[in-house]
C-alpha cells in the first residue's frame, strides 16, 4: 500500500502526513509541478498554506499540474484524502461539494476537538476504534478558513446521501461550520476532506492516536479492493 502526499509551494503539513502514512504503509511525496502520481494507491492533499492562501485558500493550488492527475485518479475511484488546506483545494477543484469560509471568529484557531464519526462504513472511517461506545475521535484543528458552507438544499442532499462523515461533537465546533460538519466525501465516496488534522494524532507522544483511524481505514480499503 503506497500513499502519495502532494507537495505544493506553501504546504506545511506534508512531511507530517508522510510520517503518519508511513505508520500504516509506504509513502512518497508528489511534487506539484510533476504530472506523475508514481503509481500510488491513495493520494493525500496535505495541510498548510499552499500559495500563501493568497486570493482564497486552495484557489491557486487546484490548478497545479499534479492536480490534473489527482482529478483523473479520483474519477477512476482512487482514494483521495484532503486535510485542512487539502480539503480547501479539493473543494475548489470541485472534487468535493461546498466551500470553506473564514472562521466566524475571523481568527486562526488551534484546538484539540472531539469529532463524531457519522458513518463508520466508508473507506475513510471503517477502522473506527473498536469497542468505543460512541465513535468519537480526539484530533486537533488549526486553521483560519474552516467554516464549511453549502446552500441549505445541498446540505440536505449531502446528509441524505450519507456524504457527511465527520461532525464536531456538541460544543466543539471551532469555526461556525454549518451543521457542525467537519468532513465530507464526494458522491462516489472515494474523495474525503476534513478540517481536523488526523496526521497530528498518530503518536502517543502527541496525546492522541485517534487520527490513525483514517489512515488505517484507507489501508484496509485499498488492501481489500485494490491490492486483493
Amino acid at each position, binding site marked *: 500500500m503506497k500513499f502519495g502526499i502532494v507537495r505544493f*509551494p*506553501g504546504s506545511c503539513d506534508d512531511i507530517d502526513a508522510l510520517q503518519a502514512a508511513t505508520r500504516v504503509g509506504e509513502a512518497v511525496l508528489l511534487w506539484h509541478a510533476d504530472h506523475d502520481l508514481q503509481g500510488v494507491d491513495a493520494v493525500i492533499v496535505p495541510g498548510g498554506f499552499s500559495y500563501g*492562501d493568497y486570493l482564497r485558500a486552495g484557489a491557486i493550488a487546484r490548478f497545479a499540474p499534479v492536480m490534473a492527475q489527482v482529478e483523473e485518479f479520483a474519477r477512476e475511484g482512487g482514494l483521495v484524502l484532503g486535510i485542512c488546506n487539502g480539503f480547501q483545494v479539493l473543494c475548489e477543484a470541485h472534487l468535493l461539494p461546498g466551500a470553506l469560509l473564514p472562521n466566524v471568529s475571523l481568527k*486562526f484557531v*488551534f484546538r484539540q476537538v472531539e469529532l463524531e464519526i457519522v458513518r463508520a462504513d466508508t473507506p475513510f472511517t471503517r477502522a473506527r476504534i473498536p469497542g468505543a461506545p460512541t465513535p468519537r475521535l480526539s484530533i*486537533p484543528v488549526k486553521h*483560519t478558513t474552516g467554516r464549511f458552507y453549502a446552500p441549505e438544499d445541498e446540505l440536505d442532499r449531502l446528509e441524505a446521501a450519507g456524504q457527511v462523515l465527520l461532525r464536531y461533537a456538541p460544543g466543539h465546533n471551532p469555526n461556525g461550520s454549518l451543521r457542525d460538519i467537519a468532513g465530507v466525501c464526494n458522491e462516489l465516496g472515494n474523495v474525503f476532506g476534513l478540517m481536523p488534522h488526523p*496526521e497530528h494524532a498518530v503518536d502517543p507522544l502527541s496525546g492522541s492516536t485517534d487520527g490513525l483511524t483514517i489512515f488505517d481505514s484507507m489501508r484496509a480499503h485499498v488492501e481489500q479492493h485494490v491490492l486483493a
Partner: protein
Amino acid sequence: MSSSTSSLEARHRQLGLTDDEYARILDRLGRTPGDVELAMLSLMWSEHCGYKHSRRLLRRLPTEGRHLLLGPGENAGAVDVGDGLAVAFKVESHNHPSAVEPFQGAATGVGGILRDVFAVGARPIAVLDSLRFGEPLDSPRSRYLLERAVAGIGHYGNSIGVPTVGGEIYFEQSYEQNCLINAMCLGLAPHERLIRSAAAGPGNVVVLLGALTGRDGIGGASVLASAELGEGDEAKRPSVQIGDPFTEKKLLECCLELLDRELLVSLQDLGAAGLTSAASEMAASGGVGITLDLCQIPLREVDMEPFEIMVSESQERMLCVARPECVGELLAVCERWEVLATTIGGVTDGDALQVLHRGSVVADLPVSVLIDDCPLYDLRPEPPSSELYSPPEAVLGGGESPAETLLALLRSPNLASRRPVFEQYDPIVQSRTVRRPDEADAAVLALPDGSAIAVSIDGNGRRVACDPRRGAAEAVYECAANLACVGAEPLGLTNCLNFGNPEKPHVAWQLTEAVEGLAEACEALGVPVVGGNVSLYNEAPSGPIFPTPVVGMVGRLPDATRAGRLGFAAEGDAIALVGAFEPSAAGSELSKLRGYAPVGELPIVDAQTLRSAHAAVRSGIRSGALRSAHDIAEGGVAVALAECCIAGGLGASVRLPDGLDPFAEAPGRAFIVAGPPAALEGFAVIGQVGGDTLAIAGLLEVDVSELTSARERGLAEWV
C-alpha cells in the same frame, strides 16, 4: 529637505551621525564619503547594527560551554544535542516596527528571526514570543497592540509551517508607549550542515536570493534622495513592511536544499541595513572584499537610487557565496522552488566593499571602516537617586481574604490563562511537539533518537526594575527551573536586552547591572550565552520601560516519553515543596495589585542550593518518580498550587511551612512536585492530591472550578 539646500555636513547629522563620528569617518577614509557611502556608514555605525553602547558590556557574558557549536557573532548560536544534531537559536526584538503597525511589525519580526536561524543552516522547528504591553484595562491602544501583534505572529509562524510552542506576556504601565515584541526561533541541523556567514574564496560568486528589492525601510536615509525625483516620491518609501511568509517558506526550503547539496560557501540573511550590512559582515568575517553590481538586482520599483538599493530592508531575502562551477546547479534548485536568484557580484582579494551602478563606482569602502571602526562607547552608569517608576493603580485594598486574593491574582492580566493567545498559534506542525502550551512549564520537542529538547523564555521586567542585577539573574534561574520541570538540563541560552536610553546614567546602570546579573547566573549554572540581541532607546517622555532582559534557554532530556507535566495527575499523590524558598513581597504580582511601586530588595540566591533543587526535580521527572512538577513563580506558592490543580483538574490539600507567605515570590528557586507517596520520600511533603478544592490549611479553600474560571476569564476579555 531637498539635497540642493542641505550641505553634506548637515546631512551626516540627518543620518544620525554625530560630528565626532563624522570626523572619524573622514579620518579613517582620508577623504569625503560619497552619498551612497555616507548612507552605508550611517547605518553600519547606528546603534542597531554597531552595538555602540552595548558591545563592550556584552563581553562580560560567558560564551564558553562544552555543548557550544556556534557562539555570538554568527546569525544564530548553536549547541550540540547529541546524535550528530545541533540546535541553533536566537531571540530578537521588533519593538519599534510593532509600535507603528503591530500586525506587520510582529509578523516581520518572526520572519526575521526565522531567517537568522536558517542562515546558519538549521531548519526552524519552533518559535516563542515574548510580549510586553501597557495595562489592558486602561488602554484601548494596548488591547489593540496585543490583538494585532498576536495575530501577526500567528500569521507568519502558522503560514510558514513553524510551530509557535511558547512565550510570555506581561502588562505594565511602563510599556504603554513602547511595547516589546521579541521573538525567538530554534532550528535543527545535522552538524555538517551548519554554515557560517564568512565569505571566502576570491573569484567566488555572490548571489542574492528571494524577494524583489523595494523601497522598504529606507527611513532616515531618504534625506539622500536626489532633488530630481518628483513630488510624492516620499510616499513610495513605505514606513511599514509587509511580511510574506509564502515567499519565505520557499526561500527556507530552497536554502536548506542548497546546503544539503553543498552548493554554498556561506550564507547570510538580509536584515537591518539590508545589502550593506549583509555584504560587509560576510566580507569582514571572511577577511575578503566584495564587489556588487546594483544593476543586476531585481527591483520591485522602477528607478530606485543606488543608496536605496544598498540600504533597502525588503524582507525575505538572503545573500550567499558560491563557487562559480556551482552556480548553474544553484540556479536550477532555486528555479524549482520558484525562488528568484541573481548573481549580483563576486568575492575579491583585499578588504573593499565596492558598489557599481551603471558602470561607475558609487561606493568603495574598506570593510574594516564599516565594521571595526564603528565607535564603541563606554556607559556612564549611576544608580538612580529617586524612584524611576510611579506606583501602579491599586486593584486590591489589602483587606481581602486569602481566597479573594488568590482569585484576584489568577484573574490578573499577568497571570490569567494565555489560551486566547496561544489558540491563535499552531504549536504542533512538524510533528515534534510533546508538550504544548499549558501542559508543562517548558515546551518539549522530540528528536529522532528518542530524546527531546526543551525550551523556555522568561523575563519579568518589574523584578528587574526593583533590582536589575538579581532580577536579571532570576530570569535565567526561572528558565532553568522551567527546564527542570520537564526533566531537561540547560545547554545554552540567548537573550534580548530591552532597555531605555543608555546615554542616561540610570539606564546605563540598569543595563550594566542586568548584564552582570545575567553573567553571574550563567556562571552559577554553567550555561553559555550563544547569542542575542539588544534593543535600546525604549523610552517615552514619561520615562524608560522597565529594564527587560528576556532570556530564552534550551535544554535536553534523554527520553521524550518521560517529559514532565505541570498538572496534578492522580488522586492520593503526595505533594512536596522542593528547594530553599525564602520569598519576598518586593516586586511581586500581589505588590503590584496592591499599588506598590517596583522597589525593594529581591531575595538572594545560593547557587549551590538552587542547583541541587533543580537537579532533584530533573532526576525525579526523568526517573518517573514525579508525576508532575511546577516551578513557583509569579503569585507565589498559592498560585503555583492553583495552577497545578487547574492543569490537572484535581484538587489538593496542603499545609504550608510555618511563616511562609503564600503570595511572596522568589522565581527559579522552588517547585511544587507530586507523585506516589513512596516515591516522594526524602522530599518535604506538604499535602496530597485529591478532592474538588484547593485547601491550604488555615488559609483558604476554593473549588478548582472557581479557580479555573477565574484564570480562564482574565485575558479572554481583552483578546
